[in-house]
């Protein structure tokens, strides 16, 4: 078989479930996470944060803190580069990040960093913060997306609006997206029933258990070392270099083990601050966020206010769909309004569709990506309306979705035609699943929903080096968030034909491998996997060359099979298979070390769909909801390590349950965050959840050598809607606002009578 063929069956390693290579480290406490690093002579940093939602910073006096013997450095915005240009929208993203990690002339949200200190102990650093005097002029604030768009709302920042926003809108509306096709008015006219409704979701945090942490060293020579927990250390390197005014190559960044990210660790928060402190103190500085800082000052997802209108014929055909999505992304441009809009109707084959998204600034922390950013809230609104249409027209929700489902060749709601996709297969699997026909108890309701995410490729570099004994080391640049070392080793083993245990996968630092995009966009198994396969194939080519040379036959007369070079056919000659280890044993004397490399930006990340089925139970006296059964069905393209694929499905569902039922950012009238601890930011605990069943559908992605589609993000797209549909069925009243907290459910029941 030619090396570039798509392989979708007869795998030796892919699809098996070996133990992860880093398992021992992680069950013994040996794995080193962000806060586990230590350096001789290290100082401890701490950050002073604004108590105001919106305030002009009139004066910062650090002299009393600096006078303390234990304090070795104090930094403010003046200690960062002044060469980072401001630009509207997302064009000036470095400036946005700089402004976020250290306030300039205004504090823009409760928790916004205004100064930082480095001292000889963590306690001394915290004590020193209390001696920094900041004089604020408190300004009017706004934290609600709809209010932020009203004429009387305070302006967060003039000039942040980009080209896309029409004249006449409030300056807090900084970006706008509009797309679609057909004629929605004509479509609605054809419908037998049109439902138009309004939905809201609150901001939720990624909620990773590991707070941001780093250890930074930056010398007077402009050379630095940074250890941090991040989803992508090259973006950290690039951003920190820009913010500190040093050359990228002079900053070496090493990614620690990462204690969860879900999108929230795709940017920087404390890393540039630690570097600035280190540069000033000329000593290593460790900086670790408290949980409260994580909630107040790192990115939650956006909150949303949405209007949906869908028309349907009596036979279930959707005639037109329209959605207006207002996304609140904090005090900076970047709310994922365009993704919300583009994902909203993607599961359906629509003749007439229009979607508009607004990115709106408020006095809240800068939103960060969260697992399929923007898509879950869209699915909540759209799939709720489809559910209601099915209810009112007496139609089966699976059949209606199948009837309208996007397939290969369908013109997507966001424009282009789909390639091979697996939505129909997930719906058929749902239809056949025993969950769908299982009886419900009184007080219970069942909901289903589809969900969609694009997935991503991104810049990727992988190196693979063979050892004399025939083992292989693979260097990848995407931090392992959920077992990706195992997937990489499986794919390398598949190509090389050597045992899984003979392959060691390392997350390389920025100085030892070429650029890698962040572990985001569900791209790791897709893109780093593709690069690992191609790097291994590159090494195999060299192995075949050595065999050809040894046998004295042309290289194209050698093929690679089961870990051995073999003659490609009877005409090539009669030679015994030459195992990999026999070639590597004397590789130093037959042409030198053998390595394989691959660097590219793979552009074939297949989009992905899922269908979820949920049973929920509502206590009509208290409004308390319990999820009693949950099934995730999702297209993985090809599951490299099925257990970790299941894990992604289950994790996405669990986060969706939290978002749907209990999680929310709660702001007081004063604009301050009221629930910045896990006690009151209520993520699901073990006793809240049932087992989460999974069905892995495999519709190969033509853009990956083994057919892989990313799986990490799509799993959080259907839950909000599926749970809302189940709860609405159980309660007998349509729930339009998330979270569906007990007070909300009880008051909806009361209003319903």
């Amino acid at each position: 078989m030619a090396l570039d063929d798509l392989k979708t069956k007869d795998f030796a390693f892919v699809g098996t479930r070996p133990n992860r290579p880093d398992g021992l480290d992680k069950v013994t406490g040996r794995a080193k996470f962000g806060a586990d690093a230590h350096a001789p002579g290290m100082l401890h940093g701490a950050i002073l944060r604004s108590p105001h939602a919106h305030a002009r910073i009139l004066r910062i006096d650090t002299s009393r803190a600096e006078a303390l013997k234990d304090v070795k450095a104090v930094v403010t915005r003046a200690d960062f580069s002044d060469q980072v240009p401001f630009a509207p929208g997302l064009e000036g993203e470095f400036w946005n990040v700089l402004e976020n990690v250290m306030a300039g002339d205004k504090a823009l949200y409760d928790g916004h960093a205004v100064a930082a200190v480095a001292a000889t102990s963590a306690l001394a650093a915290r004590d020193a913060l209390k001696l920094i005097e900041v004089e604020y002029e408190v300004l009017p604030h706004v934290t609600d997306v709809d209010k932020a768009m009203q004429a009387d709302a305070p302006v967060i920042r003039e000039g942040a609006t980009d080209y896309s926003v029409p004249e006449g809108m409030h300056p807090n509306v900084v970006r706008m997206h509009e797309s679609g096709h057909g004629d929605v008015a004509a479509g609605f006219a054809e419908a037998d029933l049109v439902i138009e409704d309004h939905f809201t979701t609150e901001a939720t945090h990624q909620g990773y258990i590991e707070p941001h942490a780093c250890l930074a060293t930056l010398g007077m020579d402009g050379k630095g070392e940074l250890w941090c927990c991040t989803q992508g250390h090259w973006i950290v390197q690039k951003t920190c270099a820009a913010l500190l005014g040093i050359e990228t190559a002079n900053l070496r960044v090493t990614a620690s083990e990462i204690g969860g990210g879900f999108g929230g660790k795709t940017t920087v928060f404390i890393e540039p601050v630690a570097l600035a402190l280190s540069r000033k103190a000329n000593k290593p500085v460790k900086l670790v966020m408290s949980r409260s800082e994580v909630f107040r000052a790192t990115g939650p997802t956006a909150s949303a206010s949405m209007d949906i209108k869908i028309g349907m014929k009596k036979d279930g055909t959707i005639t037109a769909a329209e959605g207006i999505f207002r996304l609140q992304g904090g005090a900076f441009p970047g709310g994922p309004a365009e993704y919300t809009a583009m994902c909203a109707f993607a599961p359906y084959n629509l003749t007439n569709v229009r979607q508009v998204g607004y990115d709106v600034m408020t006095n809240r922390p800068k939103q960060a990506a969260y697992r399929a950013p923007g898509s879950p809230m869209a699915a909540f609104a759209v799939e709720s309306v489809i559910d209601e249409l099915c209810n009112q027209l007496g139609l089966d929700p699976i059949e209606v979705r199948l009837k309208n489902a996007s397939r290969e060749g369908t013109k997507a709601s966001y424009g282009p035609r789909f390639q091979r996709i697996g939505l129909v297969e997930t719906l058929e699997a749902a239809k056949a699943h025993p969950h769908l026909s299982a009886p419900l108890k009184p007080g219970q309701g069942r909901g289903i929903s589809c969900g969609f995410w694009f997935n991503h490729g991104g810049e990727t570099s992988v190196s693979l080096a063979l050892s004399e004994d025939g083992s292989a080391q693979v260097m990848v640049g995407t931090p392992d968030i959920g077992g990706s070392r195992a997937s990489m080793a499986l794919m390398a083993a598949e190509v090389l034909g050597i045992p899984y245990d003979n392959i060691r996968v390392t997350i390389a630092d920025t100085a030892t491998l070429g650029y890698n995009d962040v572990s985001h966009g569900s791209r790791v198994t897709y893109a780093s996997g593709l690069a690992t396969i191609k790097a291994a194939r590159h090494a195999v080519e060299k192995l075949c060359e050595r065999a050809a040379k040894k046998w004295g036959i042309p290289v194209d007369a050698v093929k690679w099979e089961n870990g051995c070079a073999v003659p490609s056919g009877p005409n090539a000659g009669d030679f015994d298979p030459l195992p990999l280890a026999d070639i590597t044993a004397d590789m130093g004397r037959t042409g030198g070390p053998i390595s394989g490399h691959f660097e590219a930006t793979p552009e074939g990340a297949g989009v992905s769909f899922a269908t979820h089925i949920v049973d929920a139970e509502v206590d009509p006296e208290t409004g308390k909801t319990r999820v009693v059964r949950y099934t995730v069905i999702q297209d993985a393209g090809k599951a490299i390590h099925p257990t970790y694929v299941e894990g992604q499905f289950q994790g996405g569902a669990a986060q969706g349950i939290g978002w749907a039922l209990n999680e929310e950012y709660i702001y007081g009238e004063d604009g301050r965050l009221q629930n910045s601890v896990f006690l009151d930011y209520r993520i699901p605990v073990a006793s809240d959840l049932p087992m989460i069943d999974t069905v892995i559908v495999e519709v190969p992605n033509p853009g990956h050598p083994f057919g892989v589609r990313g799986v990490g993000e799509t799993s959080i797209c259907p839950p909000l809607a599926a749970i809302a549909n189940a709860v609405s069925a159980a309660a007998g009243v349509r729930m339009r606002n998330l979270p569906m907290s007990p007070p909300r459910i009880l008051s909806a029941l009361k209003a319903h009578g």
Partner: protein
Amino acid sequence: MSKIHVSTTVNGDAVEYLCDPRETLLDCLRDKLSLTGAKEGCGTGDCGACSVTLDGRLVCSCLVLGVEAEGKEIGTVEGIADGDVLHPLQQKFIDYAALQCGICTPGILVAAKALLEQNPDPTEEEVRFWLAGNLCRCTGYDKIIRAVMDTARDMREAV
């Protein structure tokens, strides 16, 4: 502010450290004894990532002061394995992929071990409620609960 001298026992070994009275046992384990297996996820006793045993009792080490460890016996994740033999829970967590990022794993292992010592035959509900103070954001708990239940079964059968 003067520091206080503390003598205590960690995973069976006698240790000493000097600490500020404001420092937690978690701070002392991590920063003074370099036992970084216990993690600080919240500092408020809500996440369980810092779980250790104190005289055999499961506690959050972020809610214990370093000075309170004087004369006590502390058990951490670093002490769970018996030499080069993993505790059955550790092995099962690897076998079942009962972890994704792994940050909550040390605390969950310490907590689950304490459960099985007290209740060798827990129901699923008992496991879930026992572990309700150990937050995991990656897994949805499914594989964790299965790993604990099946370890309990294996350990009962091995007796």
